[in-house]
């Protein structure tokens, strides 16, 4: 029963990773990575029940939180700033834009 769900999730992970590698725009890649993160949370939760170690549920919870924060951070960078910039003027202008 858990094995079926795990196999389905792993197939999903492979297909989504293929889209993340070959997506035409950067937003396709971000959407694929978002779905990858959600499926990883589900995979860890099912794995906790399969192995009987309920500690893994805490890891799944933390992974869900990190996934959302990373998603919002990446979206802010893509929408308002330069993706690879490191000079201070650019960061200052981003702050002024949002403030």
């Amino acid at each position: 029963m858990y094995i079926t769900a795990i196999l389905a999730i792993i197939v999903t992970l492979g297909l989504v990773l293929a889209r993340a590698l070959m997506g035409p725009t950067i937003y396709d890649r971000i959407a694929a990575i978002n779905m990858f993160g959600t499926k990883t949370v589900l995979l860890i939760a099912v794995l906790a029940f399969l192995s009987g170690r309920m500690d893994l549920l805490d890891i799944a919870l933390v992974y869900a939180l990190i996934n959302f924060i990373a998603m919002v951070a990446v979206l802010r960078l893509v929408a308002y700033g330069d993706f690879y910039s490191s000079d201070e003027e650019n960061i200052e202008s981003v702050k002024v834009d949002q403030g």
Partner: protein
Amino acid sequence: MIVDALSWICLVLGGLVGVIGAIGIHRFPDFYSRQHATGTTDTLGAILILLGLGLQAGFSLAALKIGLIFLFLFLTSPAATHALAYAATHSGLKPKLDGTPGEDMP
């Protein structure tokens, strides 16, 4: 017994919905239609799989943690989808349309 059957149905349906979403992310032609495939199936698959696990857990601490993960994914997954579509629209990405916009499209 009945709870086991319900949990089995939920887990298999959740996995099936996830695979359908992964097929949809490859078959749709456009970013926005792909977003439709991923956004909806992501939330529904997570709900179904976590519901199946919660039925297996019964009343325990594990069920509480499953409920927390459920609540968090249920709140943040549509928010992330909306933010992503908003960022794409804001950056000027146009949807791909069939035909000319004046005649057969609003």
